[in-house]
């Protein structure tokens, strides 16, 4: 909606928007700032803004307590693994729902979403017992499967709404040329759907990265991601605001940076069919 507006109006808008944006992001910025303070200054009253003794001591302390990179790699593997597995299952499903809709397609979609409504904590013990039987406790593959299952309904739905906007005639044309179903999906549909798929991938990575129930209860060390890392810092003894801030920054920085760089791709497909 590029409309010509006066410079003064733009200035007002800018000031307002920046104010709101900084307010929303303030907790994150403040945490980042606090992570570089010595502990006593982190709880100083009145609060210190920039004139403190900048230090990276907190990061060193946190790293000395446990190796950040073990957790980081597990987070990466779980997020990427569950997303990849989810796509393999969801793309064909979303394709068939979008292009060969049946009478029950919408019900099916809603049913899939409703599987997300079971409180995880109610099925903790049953799932734990199954994991013991299958030898999946504290394994990356077990967590990849669980995270995939949790997010699958969302992936299917996102892809479905995106696929539905692709005109069927294009597929008809491809079919006329004698393309098989597999080729149709691979060479015609997928390229057109890339923006939607990209955005689905990004959303799924974010959701998997931030899942903080199953990743904590089903892991000990081998598959433990950053959510487990942070749960060891939630209430240690004594003054800890600065160290808590450092650990928090370490846990959220990778996904935050990824999000910032890919926000255009994320936004483009994040419509769930809300835009016509």
């Amino acid at each position, binding site marked *: 909606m590029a409309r010509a507006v006066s410079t003064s109006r733009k200035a007002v808008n800018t000031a307002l928007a920046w104010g709101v944006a900084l307010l929303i992001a303030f907790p994150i910025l403040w945490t980042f700032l606090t992570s570089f303070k010595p*502990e*006593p200054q982190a*709880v100083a*009253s009145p609060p210190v803004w920039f004139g403190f003794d900048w230090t990276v001591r907190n990061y060193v302390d946190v790293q*000395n*307590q*446990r190796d950040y990179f073990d957790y980081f790699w597990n987070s990466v593997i779980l997020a990427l693994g569950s997303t990849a597995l989810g796509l393999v299952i969801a793309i064909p499903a979303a394709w068939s729902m979008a292009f060969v809709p049946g009478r029950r397609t919408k019900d099916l979609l809603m049913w899939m979403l409703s599987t997300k409504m079971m409180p995880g904590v109610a099925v*903790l*013990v049953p799932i*734990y*017992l199954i994991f*013991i039987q299958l030898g999946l*406790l*504290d394994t990356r593959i077990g967590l990849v499967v669980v995270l995939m299952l949790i997010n699958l309904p969302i992936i299917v739905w996102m892809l479905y709404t995106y696929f539905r906007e692709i005109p069927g005639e294009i597929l008809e044309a491809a079919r006329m040329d004698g393309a098989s179903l597999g080729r149709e999906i691979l060479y015609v549909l997928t390229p057109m759907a890339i923006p939607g798929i990209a955005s689905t991938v990004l959303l799924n990575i974010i959701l998997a990265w931030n899942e903080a129930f199953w990743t*904590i*209860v089903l892991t*000990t*060390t081998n598959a*433990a991601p950053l959510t*487990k890392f942070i*749960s*060891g*810092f*939630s*209430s*240690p*003894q*004594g*003054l*800890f605001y600065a160290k808590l801030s450092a650990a928090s920054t370490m846990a959220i920085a990778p996904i935050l940076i990824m999000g910032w760089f890919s926000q255009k791709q994320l936004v483009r497909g994040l419509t769930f069919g809300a835009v016509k």
Partner: protein
Amino acid sequence: MTMLTRALLGATALCACGFAAAAQETTTLTIATVNNGDMIRMQGLADAFTEANPNIELEWVTLEENVLRQNVTTDIATNGGQYDVITIGTYEVPIWGRQNWLVPLNDLPAEYDVDDLLPPIRAGLSVDDTLYAVPFYGESSFVMYRKDLAEAAGVTIPEQPTWDEIKAAAAAMNDPDAGIHGICLRGKAGWGENMAFLTTMANSYGARWFDENWQPQFDSPEWKAAITDYLDLMNNYGPPGASSNGFNENLTLFQQGKCGMWIDATVAGSFVTDPNNSTVADQVGFALAPDAGQGKRANWLWAWSLAIPSSSDAPEEAKQFLAWATSKDYANLVAETEGWANVPPGTRTSLYENPDYVAAAPFAQMTIDSINAADPNQPTRDPVPYTGVQFVAIPEFQGLGTTVGQEFSAALAGQKTADEALAAAQELALQEMTSAGYIQQ
């Protein structure tokens, strides 16, 4: 030959011929610990253990207390086998030991000197004379107060104070405009948080959780007196937001100099006197937990302990680790690297006979006196059918203690009166004890 000597010999052989141990297979021990200062220090010093035992690798799972308890309980009760060594307290040990979920530890080597463990602590970790866990550090509770503030306010806190003296001191030291609150006590709901403190306070007022027939006693005048005094103290002289404060929150407040008094774990003695973290390190005085003339003081007994789940696939190696982490040698190692004041307290008689330790730790005598004053087998004035000082050693207590704790936390936040909270607690306890089969209908 015991495990430890074998391990030591193995280590010597390694030094002598280089690769003797390399032929052995490496065992990985997964150790679940709580994120407190002493445990984190042990992780840093554990290289000494792995160097002496090159065939053992250690993997740490460090968690916040509640998350730890939840993960470990689920795993041990379902026989999951995720952990080889777990950190648990005096509440869990007897219950879990009785279920045969823990490996008995009666065959520890002679050098371990199991008789050196403090008798009340050792008793708390045994079932029918079988030891199921070894104490990493033990604690009671006592009064910590600011000597400078007490002096300025013109009050003295005797070594064996009464609750009336505590009330008077809190009133005298309270100065909220200067950011100083007369007294800081636990208020966050939880059987190991506010109920640990409140149960001991109630004990000292002559109250008890249950009578001999497991009938809840929250309708007794003793409970009412205890809760009323607690609420008065906190509402008049406590910090804001006290209903969210547990041990860690109060420790932070005290270290910042915002509390005149704080009644909590003896283990805090070394934290509040540590000049690196405490702004009031040289001004802290100690006193025994208060009493109300009923023959019991308000002090508890707790030990964070190491145990081996029966589902561990390396119990022998785990025993080696346990014996190292709770040994006299470990205490010496901490003393060498971090100073005597940082040695895990409250587990061994020998530590309190060590002049170096007593000189370095101003809270040492008060700690041992407090521990010895607690009697888990006779915690209250009137007879009770349970053991445990600040808890009731039955499996149902975790859930019950926490829901009851929520009632008192609500009372502290001003959402309920003392009477309403006590009535609700009585109702909850009656319901739980009936459905769990303690009370026959």
